[in-house]
C-alpha cells in the first residue's frame, strides 16, 4: 500500500495539475483537478495515516487533544479555500472593473511562442484556479477533520 502510494501520489498530482490546466479545452478543469489533488493527499493519509500526512509531509507535530480547530494543517487547508474563494470573487470583480461585467471572462492568444507556437491565456483560468483552491482546501478540511474524529 505504501509503495503504491509512493508511486501513485506523484502521478496523480501531475495528472491533477495537467487536468486543471487543460480543463478549458479538454476534459478536466479546476474541479476535477482539485478533487484529484485531494485524492492524492488522501492516498497518503490512507497509506500512512493522518500523522504522516501532517507530520511527515507537512512537517507538523500532531496533537489531537488540542482540537482540530487550531490544527496547523487544517488552518492551512482553511486558508487555501479562503484564498480560492477570494480569487473567485476577485476575478469576478476584476471583470467588472476592467469595464466588463461581473464574472466576465476574456482570453488572449499569444502567437509565436517557442515550442507551443501559440498559447491561449484565458482569464477563466484564474477563475478556475479559485475553483481548484476551494475544492482542494475544502475537501482536505473535510477529510482531515472527519478522519481525525
Amino acid at each position, binding site marked *: 500500500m505504501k509503495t503504491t502510494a509512493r508511486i501513485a501520489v506523484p502521478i496523480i498530482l501531475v495528472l491533477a495539475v495537467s487536468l486543471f490546466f487543460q*480543463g478549458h479545452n479538454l476534459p478536466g478543469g479546476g474541479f476535477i483537478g482539485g*478533487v484529484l489533488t485531494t485524492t492524492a493527499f*488522501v492516498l497518503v493519509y490512507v497509506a500512512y495515516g493522518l500523522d504522516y500526512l501532517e507530520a511527515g509531509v507537512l512537517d507538523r507535530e500532531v496533537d489531537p487533544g488540542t482540537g482540530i480547530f487550531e490544527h496547523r494543517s*487544517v488552518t492551512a487547508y482553511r486558508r487555501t479555500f479562503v484564498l*480560492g474563494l477570494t480569487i473567485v470573487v476577485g476575478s469576478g470583480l476584476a471583470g467588472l472593473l476592467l469595464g466588463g461585467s461581473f464574472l466576465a471572462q476574456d482570453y488572449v492568444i499569444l502567437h509565436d511562442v517557442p515550442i507551443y507556437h501559440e498559447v491561449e491565456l484565458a482569464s477563466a483560468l484564474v477563475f478556475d484556479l479559485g475553483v481548484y483552491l476551494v475544492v482542494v482546501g475544502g*475537501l482536505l478540511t473535510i477529510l482531515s477533520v472527519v478522519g481525525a474524529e
Partner: protein
Amino acid sequence: MSPELSVVTTAIALPFVGAAATPLIYRWFGERTGYAAAALALVSFGLLATQLGEYGTVAAPWIPSIGVALRFTVDGWALLFALLASGIGVLVFTYSAAYMHGGHNLQRYYAALLAFMGSILGVALAADLVVVFLFWELTSLASFVLIGHHTTDGESRYAARMAMLVTVGGGLCLLAGLLVLSIAARQALGTASFDLATMLANDEAMRSALRDQGLFVPALVLIAIAAAAKSAQVPLHFWLPNAMVAPTPVSAFLHSATMVKVGVYFVGRLRPLLSGPEWTLLFATLGLVTMTVGALLAVASTDTKELLAYSTASHLGLMVAGFGFGAVAGGEAGAFHLLNHALFKAPLFLVAGILAHEAGSRSLDNMSGLRRELPVTAAIAVVAGLSMAGIPPFNGFYSKELLFEAAYEFGHEAGGLAWLYPAVATVASIFTVLYSLKFLAVFFGERRAPQKTVPRPPTALVVPPAVLALGVLVVSAVPQFAVDLIVQGAVDATARGQPEFSVHFPPEHVTPPLLMSGVAIVGGVAAYPVTDRVARAIETVRDSTVLIRPSGWYDRALSETERAGAHVGPLVHTGVLRTYVVWGLATVSALVLAGYVATSASVPAVDGLGVPLIVALVLLIALLAGFAVPTAPSHVAGVLTLSILGFVLAIFYIVASAPDLALTQLVVETLVLLIFLLVLQRLPEFYADLDRFVVGRDVVLSLVVGVMAFVSTLLVSPDPAADPTELARYYVTEAVPEGGGTNVVNVVLVDFRGFDTMGELVVITIAAVSVLVLVTMRTRGETQ
C-alpha cells in the same frame, strides 16, 4: 356650519399625547397626575362642546392609495357619546386621584386610562371604517392593560386575557363586517371606499348592493358578533363581570361611558344603513335576551360590582333591543338610554368604590344600614339606583318607557310570537327593579359591616358621583332639556328620516307601555321579600351546566384548545423521520401525478428502449446495483454497493458522451467512499426488526415515488433524435469565440454560467466550514 378638523383631531389626540407624556407628567405631579389627566379630559370635553350643532364630516388624508382617511363625523350621536366619555372621564380622573392613592404602577394606569378615553373619542367621531376599527381595537387594548392593572394577581391576568380574547376576537368579526361594507360600497358608490359618512348618505344604494351580492346577512351577523362581544351581549357577556377586577374607577368608566357602549354605539351608527326585518329579528332578540339574562344574573350576584356589571349587560341589552326595533321609539330608547345609563351607572360604580374603600367590602351579604355613616353616598345611590330601576320620575324610567313602547308596537304590528318581545321586556324589568332594590339595601335596614367604624370618604371620592347624580336629577326633572340639547340629534343620526321626539311627564293618559312599567315595578317590589330564594333558584339554573354558567363555555373552550394545542405539537412532530418523509413524498407524488393527469399530458409513442444497447446495458447494471443497496447485510457492504452504483454511473456518463462528468463522478465517488468508510468505522452496526407490514408499506410508497419519477422522465425526456435546444447550440458554437475554450462544458461552467459555479464553491466552502463547526462546537457544547 361644519366642524373644525383641527378642533376634532385635537380633542382626540390630546388624551393620547397625555398618555405618551404620562411619565413626564407623573414626574411633576406625582399622585396628583389624576388631576392633570382630568384637566386634559376637560379640555377635550370643552373642545367637543364647541362643536355642538356644527354637524358634518371633515377629513385628513392617511392612506390615499386605498382611500383611507382620518375622517371624522360630528353629529348628535357622535357628540353624545364623545361628550359622555370625556365628561365622565373628567370625573373618573378626579376620583382616581383620591382612590388610587398609594397605588402602584400609576404611570401605566393613567397612560392607559387616557389612551382609553382617547380611543373612545376616536370611535365616536370616526367616519372611516379603517379609523373606526383602529380606535375600536385601541379601546380593547387599553382595557386589556387596565383590567390587568394588578399584574401580579392571577385573577386580573385571567380577566384581562378574557377581555382581550372576547373583544379583539369580536374585532375580527368587525373587520370582516367592515370589509363587507367596503365591498358593497364598491358597487354602490362606484369606487372602493371606506367612507362611512358617504355610505350612510347612500344607505339605499348600499343596502341594495349588499343584497345583490348576498352579503347583507353576513355583514349583519359579523357586525352583530362584534357589537355583542364589545357590549357584553349574551353569550359573550361573561367577560364584563370578570373585568371588575380592574380598579373601581376603571370599572365605572368602562361600564358607563366607554368600552361597553362602543358596541351599542356602533349598532346605532349603522342602524340607518342596515335596519330591516333581519336587523330587528337579530338585534331585538339579542338585546332582550341579554336584558333578561343580565337582570337575572344581577339578582343572583353577591358582590356589589358583580351586580352592577350584570346590570350593565342587562341595560346594554335594553339599548341594543331599542335600536333593534324599527319604530321611532326604539331609536329613541337606545339613544336616550345611552345617556341615562351613563349618568346612573357611573355614580353607582363610584359608590361601590366608596363602599370598598371605606367599608372594606364588596359583599352584598355582609353590608347593610350604611346610610348613617355614609349619608351623602346613600343619597347618591338612591337617586342613581331608582333611575336604574326605572322608577318614575327618574330618567331611567323615560328611556325604558320608550323601549316598552317600541316592543309593544312591534308585538302589536307583527302579532303572534312577536308578543313575546314586550312580555320579555316586562319580565326583565321586574328583575331590574329587584336587583336595584337589592343593591340599595346596603344602605338600609340593620347596620352590618365588616368594619366597626366606617370613616367618612374624602371629598374627592364623593364629588364625582354627586355631580353625576345631580345630572340624573337634572335630566329627570327636565328631560326635554337633554332631548333638545343633544338627544334629538342622536336620534336623528341613528334613524332614517327626521323623527320628532319629545318626552312627557307625567303621562297624559294610561298607555300599554305605562302598564308594563307598572307591572315591572309592582312585580319587583312584591318579589323583594323573597329575593334570596329567587337568587338561589337562579344560581341553581346558572350552575346546572357549563354551557350556561357565565364564562363556563369560555373556560371550557380555552382549556380544550390548550389541551389540543399541547397535543398537536408532539402528535404531529413526533421526531420520527420516516413520518416526515412519508408525508412529504406521498404529497409530492400525488400532486405531480395529479398534475400530469389534469393536463392529460401524453407519453409519446414508446419505441423500444429508447437508448442504444450499450447505454441500456450500463443502466441495467446501475439499476441492479441500486437494488442491491437496501439488501446489503452490513454497513461496509452497503457502502461498497453504493460505490459500485456510483462507478457504474460514471461509465454511464462516458457512454452518454460526458467525459467531464465521468471523471468527476469517478473521483468524487472515490472520495465519498472514503468518507463513508471513515465515518462508518466509528458507527455501530444496527439492525432494526424488519416488520413485514412496515416494509410492505414502505415498498408501496417507494413504488409510488418511483412511478412519479418514472412518468416524469418518460413524459419530458426529449427524443434523442430531436434537435438540441437553442441554448445547447449556442454554447457549442460560441464556446470558442466567446469563451476561448474547446471544452464546452468547462466553458459553460466558468464562463457562461460562472455564477452557478461561484455558488457551488460557496457550498463547498460551507461544507468544509460545517465539519469544523461540528467538531469545534462539540468540544464546546451548548452554552446557549
